[in-house]
């Protein structure tokens, strides 16, 4: 192991470093030493569950901002932030027609930082839809869907649909005139599905119009069903980036 690696400097810092980062507890959490050598820098990525989605090394063109504009990562960032703000909103929100609207209204007036959380959740949701579209355009115009990444593009299209579905189901939850009529418009579209339109609409709404059954269905899909599905496809998406040889670059 890397016990022998120590920063140069006065004895006090060396001692402090030794005590802080080479004690038994610290080393039980972080197996690798301080990332100041190439070996430890690679270990920092490879031995960390969150960072190990990355390769340990990458081609230098891939860190150019103009190559990707960070759009895929940004989408993931929005997803994580939406999870955090969404969990906070869930503390105060009851998905029933009697309470939904007043809970959201109370969130804006009675709860400290409630308005901020709701605003963040809404604007980041819009941000995620936009960044998904931009990410798709980046991947397309750089030809990054080409072999061997065909399947990952397909997973991306599924994730695009899931993002729109997540946003659409969340749209109903404030239970105001904007949400209920936007969802009514959308559900009328679903009702025109050839051969099984009425059935599709009925399954999604749990009834013939947007009511309390629709609210609980949209809520369940929004807070657990679709996020889980999206997380699964994201796992596949990220895994396949690595398996297919990282970011696309000229052959």
């Amino acid at each position, binding site marked *: 192991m890397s016990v022998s690696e120590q920063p140069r400097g006065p004895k006090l810092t060396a001692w402090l470093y030794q005590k802080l980062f080479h004690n038994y507890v610290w080393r039980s959490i972080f197996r690798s030493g301080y*990332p100041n050598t190439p070996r430890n*820098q*690679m270990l*920092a990525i490879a031995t960390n569950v969150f*960072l190990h989605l*990355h*390769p*340990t*090394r*990458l*081609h*230098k063109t891939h*860190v150019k*901002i103009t*190559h990707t504009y960070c759009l895929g*990562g*940004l989408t993931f*960032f929005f997803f994580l*932030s939406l999870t955090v703000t969404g969990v906070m909103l869930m503390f105060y929100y009851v998905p029933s027609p009697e309470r939904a*609207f007043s809970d*959201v*209204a109370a969130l804006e007036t009675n709860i400290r930082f409630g*308005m*901020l959380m709701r*605003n*963040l959740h809404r604007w980041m949701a*819009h941000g995620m839809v936009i960044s998904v579209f931009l990410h798709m355009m980046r991947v397309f*115009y*750089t*030809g*990054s*869907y*080409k*072999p061997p*990444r*065909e399947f990952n*593009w397909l997973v991306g*299209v599924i994730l695009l649909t899931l993002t*729109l579905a997540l*946003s*659409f189901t969340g*749209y109903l939850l404030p239970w*105001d*005139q*904007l949400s*209920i*009529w*936007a969802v009514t*418009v*959308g559900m*009328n579209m679903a009702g*025109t599905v050839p051969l099984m339109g009425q059935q599709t609409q009925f399954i999604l709404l749990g009834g013939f*119009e*947007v*009511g309390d059954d629709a609210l609980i269905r949209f809520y369940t899909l929004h807070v657990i069903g679709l996020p889980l599905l999206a997380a699964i496809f994201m796992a596949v998406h990220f895994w396949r980036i690595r398996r297919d040889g990282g*970011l*696309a*670059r*000229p*052959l």
Partner: protein
Amino acid sequence: MAVDAKAVTGTSSSLRPRREREQELLVWPDLVFIEFIAAVVFTLAFVILSTVIDAPLLNEANLDITPNPSKAAWYLVSLQELLLHMHPALGGVIAPTFALIILAVIPYADRSNDGQGIWFGTPNAVKITLFSAAFASIFTVGMILYDQGRHVNVVTNIVQHADKDWQWPGYLAPFQNVRAIQTGWTWSVPVPEAAQLGPGEHDGALHWPEDFDHIPMPFNGTSGPDWMRWGPPDFLPGWLQALYWYDLNLNLPAFIVENFIPVVVMVGLPALLIVTMRKMGWVHTVRDGSIAIFTGMMVVYFILTIIGAGFRGAGQDLVLPWDVPHID
């Protein structure tokens, strides 16, 4: 060039030469720090945005009060805009489903791995993108303006300065908007006395549209002479009854207006775009073609979103953005 590279690498090749060590960077710190900074910048930006602009919250939901206009979420108003111009199933479900399928199969059609990882990797890619964007914008905006039919008022006003009684002639109705083909257009073809085409009175001619809106489809049991009629298929299970078009009659004018013309336009214009650019010598490979189609789809989506969100007022009328009613 593109063809040569494809021949050498093959279509399924995912092999690449081993990269040189000096071209490599370590993910820690070079990439992880960029990601960290991006996360911090966007967190800060959205916190600032959220303190400045509040999310909308209108009055409590009430299905008895319909706002006018009622609009879908912004990423769906493009579909809502399509509904104004075609059959709801076509505009709201079939067309977007096909769009998603086309999107998903792009890499299975464009199988060369030539030019990957470069912005606009083919020689004409930028030209194709710009041309397709312009083509899609002009036709989308043009068709929406045509279907809105404002030009009818303009022309009528101008001509009425000269001739007070002038009206848009009936035989030119298709130039008003698409729907006028069904509602405002009248013509007839003479039919000989011997031919009896329907159950009604024979008046010597077939008139558009009223003689064309009830054409029995094959296996329809409710029209024609007695031997061609039969009872409803009660013996079938319910779901088969729903599938069997027992009393289906074709409303030909409505079908042409709501389905046929939109499909011809949605298939024909992309085809025209590709053919035009092939003739101009810009499109050589599947990649070039897919750039054109993808760009067209994105631009149409964008323009329909802008028009649906910003230019549709009460009754989904085409108005200027500041005339769109404020809903609360």
